[in-house]
């Protein structure tokens, strides 16, 4: 049992602050979709409006082809998992999971079977008689998931489901949720500020910023063909290089990258380049430019190279150690910058997506630090 989720023109203001601005997207039946964005981008408000916990000022919500905009929270029959679990602290795990069944007056025998089945599914069968405060964070979140799934909802909404957990547990739960979704196939929509989480789990990603949708697409499109400077900067680590456009190329000093197709000559442009899209060679080639190696940080299987272009702009490359044998600080080598994502500079400045440092994923995500540039 699953249904698609459709959101059309959803808008919501809190006082004079427009939290959600004309948001439209669709989550196809049986898929996992991520709502990805920095904090304050309106993603949680969108989720809460789908659940009926907030009322939109405009727009509509559809689940399985049925409009739910005016329906009460109770009548929507959607599963909702809260960031801080929101387990009923005075009830045992079993009672928590059974809650959605018992308020709908499902008979006791069926309740017991369904609870057993779900506790088995989330791997908490021996913990049925415990209270929430006797469980770890990861276990609590799994109880919350079992509780949301118990009434067989058409769709599952998860609000920062791993946000309150430490990095290791988060990794585990992520893999486990992926597995669970394959097994159950329930349409899932989750909110996250962690791009890695979104890229790994989701079939489709909806990137949000300042209450608006920046881009909707599968992980590889979001990563490799960002539609806006914000997406280029927010999803995945990038170097930010500023230059001037001549004949569809961005020039910084003697270095050139292609890709400035729609930017007029003489205009400023920003090129976003992934640290792993930089190739280091010993000799100049038609597409490679001189760089100075300032520092090498060996991280085991790969290294971070801190480089500087001739015009003084810094650049960080991340390369497997086998590809850069003998490269050391102080050397002058050549770099080939592949797959640049180029945007007009004024546009990128507007989205404040050009600040070095803002180029990497939000600092809250510990798993990102290794990819930090």
């Amino acid at each position, binding site marked *: 049992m699953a249904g698609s989720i459709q959101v059309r023109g959803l808008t919501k203001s809190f006082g004079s602050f427009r939290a959600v601005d004309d948001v439209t997207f669709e989550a196809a039946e049986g898929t996992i979709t991520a709502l990805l964005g920095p904090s304050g981008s309106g993603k949680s408000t969108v989720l809460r409006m789908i659940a009926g916990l907030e009322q939109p000022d405009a727009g509509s919500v559809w689940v399985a082809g049925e409009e739910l905009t005016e329906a009460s929270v*109770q009548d929507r029959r959607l*599963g909702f998992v809260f960031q801080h679990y929101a387990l*009923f602290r005075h009830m045992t795990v079993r009672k928590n999971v059974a809650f959605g069944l018992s308020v709908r007056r499902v008979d006791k025998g069926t309740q017991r079977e369904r609870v057993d089945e779900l506790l088995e599914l989330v791997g908490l069968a021996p913990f049925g008689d415990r209270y929430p405060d006797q469980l770890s964070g990861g276990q609590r979140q799994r109880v919350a998931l079992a509780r949301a799934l118990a009434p067989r909802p058409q769709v599952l909404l998860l609000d920062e489901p791993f946000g309150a957990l430490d990095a290791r547990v988060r990794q585990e739960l992520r893999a486990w949720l992926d597995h669970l979704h394959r097994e159950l196939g329930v349409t899932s929509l989750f909110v996250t500020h962690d791009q890695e989480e979104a890229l790994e789990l989701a079939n489709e990603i909806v990137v949000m910023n300042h209450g608006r949708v920046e881009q909707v697409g599968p992980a590889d499109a979001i990563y490799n063909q960002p539609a806006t400077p914000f997406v280029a900067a927010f999803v995945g680590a990038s170097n930010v290089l500023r230059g001037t456009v001549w004949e569809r190329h961005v020039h910084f000093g003697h270095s050139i990258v292609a890709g400035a197709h729609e930017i007029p000559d003489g205009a400023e442009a920003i090129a976003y380049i992934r640290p792993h899209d930089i190739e280091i060679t010993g000799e100049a080639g038609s597409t490679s430019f001189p760089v100075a190696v300032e520092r090498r940080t060996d991280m085991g299987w790969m290294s971070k190279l801190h480089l500087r272009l001739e015009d003084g702009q810094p650049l960080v490359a991340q390369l497997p150690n086998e590809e850069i044998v003998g490269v050391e600080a102080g050397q002058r080598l050549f770099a080939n910058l592949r797959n640049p994502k180029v945007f007009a500079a004024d546009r990128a400045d507007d989205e404040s997506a050009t600040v070095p440092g803002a180029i990497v994923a939000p600092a809250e995500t510990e798993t990102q630090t290794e990819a930090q540039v």
Partner: protein
Amino acid sequence: MSTISTSARADRRKARLWRALMLSVALLYVAVLLLAPLGGIIYYALKEGLGEVGHTFRQSDVRHAFYLTAIIMVVTVIVTTFFGIIVALVLARDRFVGKRLVSALVDLPLAVSPVIVGLMAVLLFGRGGWFEPFFAARGIQVIFALPSMILVTIFISIPFVIREVVPVLQELGMEEEQAAWTLGASRLQTFRRVTLPNIRWGLLYGIALSAARSIGEVGAVLIVSGSLQGQTETATLYILRAFDQYQEQQAYIVALTLASFSIVMLIGIETLKRRASREAG
């Protein structure tokens, strides 16, 4: 080396001394202010033996006084609990203009002397009062009768349930309730199965304080009731009269009964609470 350990030992001794001092001050304070009067009442009430106790309880005016006190307490507890929960939910959950004012008003009964509360009631319901014609026309006696006694007692007991429940609700937040809604629970089901169990200890405490306060009220009730023996005389008013008429023995016995009831109630709640928290781990 030896000097260090000597000074460390001296520090430890000083810390121990401080602890002992604090402990004795606390115990002394509690003993002098709480236990001594209680012990005095117990001693004087039982001085003449249990026969005197039985005799006191057989007096019809004593029985009537307890009966009145019980009625006032039950009605007060029901009203302050019901409306207290509603006011607490509104104060903890809603935002509206004037919320601070309402929150301050709730505490008013604690700040105003009960005697003044009694006077206000007389002004409203007594001869020439605003509401007097309305009730007089319907043949309802308010002043010098049970209705006004209940009314002033409710007024004085308003803050307790609210003050105990609001912080619990605030600490609880809304997420559990919202989770219940998403699971299909109606507002009433959510209140009964999620909110109420979470606030029950605060609520019970509020109810106990409310009950204790309504049992003990003298000033306001004295003014509105007229304190007619065997008619509008509550247990506390009986104690006052018994003292005036040199029936100190009976006064002590009734006082001890009231005090015991309140103490047993508070200990009962404390015990329940401890047992419940042990069960919950």
